[in-house]
């Protein structure tokens, strides 16, 4: 691995952790915001809306349930569209560099050329 590739990987890794930590923080804030509202403002959460047919608490609770898959979708989209292609390009750059790279303590075969992205899903186990 040359110095430039190492820096590319480090910055890509740092970006992934940044995105991951930001999204985790949003999930934490939403969830604990909800819990603390229940703990400290029960009258607000119990307030009836829409002609008394639902409460603020249930609407917010359903919203928290919706936020979890939405944040996940944001992350998966980012990772599929930006992170994966950059990683793939880096893999190619590393694999085409001669000679075979040696990573600290790892055998030289640690970084093989990955199979095409469609291949791993073709062979699915089915009873």
């Amino acid at each position: 691995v040359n110095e430039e590739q190492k820096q590319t990987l480090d910055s890509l890794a740092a970006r992934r952790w940044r995105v991951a930590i930001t999204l985790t923080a949003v999930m934490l804030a939403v969830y604990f915001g909800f819990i603390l509202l229940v703990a400290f403002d029960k009258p607000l959460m119990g307030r009836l809306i829409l002609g008394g047919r639902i409460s603020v608490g249930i609407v917010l609770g359903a919203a928290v349930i919706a936020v979890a898959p939405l944040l996940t979708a944001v992350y998966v989209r980012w990772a599929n569209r930006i992170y994966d292609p950059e990683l793939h390009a880096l893999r190619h750059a590393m694999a085409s560099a001669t000679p075979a790279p040696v990573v600290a303590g790892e055998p030289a075969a640690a970084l093989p050329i990955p199979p095409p992205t469609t291949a791993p899903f073709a062979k699915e186990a089915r009873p």
Partner: protein
Amino acid sequence: VNPPVNATKVATSLGHPNATAIGFFILFVLVTVYVTRWAARRTRTTHEFFAAGSRISARQNGFALAGDYMSAASFLGIAGLVSMSGFDGLIYSIGFLVGWPVITFLIAEPLRNLGKYTFADAVAYRLKQRPVRIAAAAGTLTVVAFYLIAQMVGAGDLITLMFGIPYWSAVLIVGGVMLLYVLFGGMIATTWVQIIKAGLLLTGATALAVLVLARFGFNPLELFSAARAKYPDAAPLAPGKLVSNPVDAVSLGLALMFGTAGLPHILMRFYTVPDAATARRSVAYATVLIGFFYLVTFVLGFGASVLVGREVIASVPGKSNMAAPLLAEVLGGTGFLGFICAVAFATILAVVAGLTLSGASALSHDLWNHVVRKGESPEHEQLRVARIATVALGLAAIGLGILFKGQNVAFMVGLAFAIAASGNFPALLLSMTWRRFTTRGAVASMVTGTATAVILIAISPTVWHDVLKLKSTAPISLKNPAIISMPLAFVVGVVASLLAPERKAAEGFTGAITRMHMGA
């Protein structure tokens, strides 16, 4: 609202042997045993036994993850909690869901790339193998033990109530059938049992919710207002007594959120897919399925509250746990009741199988291969040890299930989550993110997290009063230990690492970064 008891007597066939229930259950067992036979022919290596040969697709693993996570306790328990206390049940559902995005963002991909069969692989990647493996295996087995006891006792109780068979025979059936799956079919069979079970549970719960909503013009708002009209004094749409102490609420929230990311049987599933990108997509599927499941459960709880009635639910043995089965009987007759009971039985079986396999992987892969044999155990020997460990764990599960009969084990699932959040999660996260993390830091963090969680639970009001029946005031008032034990595990891990730096561990981090992102 306290109407005379005789006015609430219900005609339910719950608790009597039910032909449909038994029929559906036998059908489930036949299908899953057939799948196990098919899987057994494909289980020749440890990679197949522990990780299904890493050939499971994203969608399949999404269903299997959901299957591992959606226990009978969350289906019957949360529907019951919602039926009796309305809004408060929603707080639990949300807690159980929000850990999943955390797994997606922080854990799934690096774990998949660093490890092979257990989460200890990832923790120990650049650290000294033996101490880390021993501590991680201890954490795994503690979580698995408490989770298993809760499942087995719940299985015995529920199946006695629903099928009318004796407690011990219910425990024996669950233990015996589960052993068949794991022993012969390993992870391949266990994965497919989870997928089938998740499909059945989601289908059954959704069908029931559709029947409920059909009574209210497919408008949930009408359902909610009917519940409010029926229980005007109880205010079912408003928060009740569940969250009275903010510290307890936040502590429980931490345990649920980060405990999910430290459950060994969940983490193990990420090795069943081919690569990190598939692992990522599989958690996304699981998150959607589990979120949907809890929304459906919320509808079922309100449906039971209105259509069955709180007095009726409180009058049957098993009380609120029977809210969903009773609702099925009211809406779909004995046949539908039987189907829901069979699904609950199948649910317990699948969860117990997943737990046993993860315990076996800790015993065989972490303790036998890496600690006793220093990573040099030949393939056939590892497989034999894994099967012996499976049988031992299966017998232990049956024994513990019978031993803890009639005991209050409800706190044990909460304890398992607290241990997972304190013992497993901090060390896993630190090892994957912090260059200066050391072997000593990892061991200290895992031991401190697990021990603190167990001790604080033992002296909490729950165990002090409800389990030990002691009259004196409990030494601490905290119901869930995570707010103390999880931060403590992080602090101990960091301090122990800083006090005695480990040059090799820090140097190995560069290789770990490459591996974590690029894969093997």
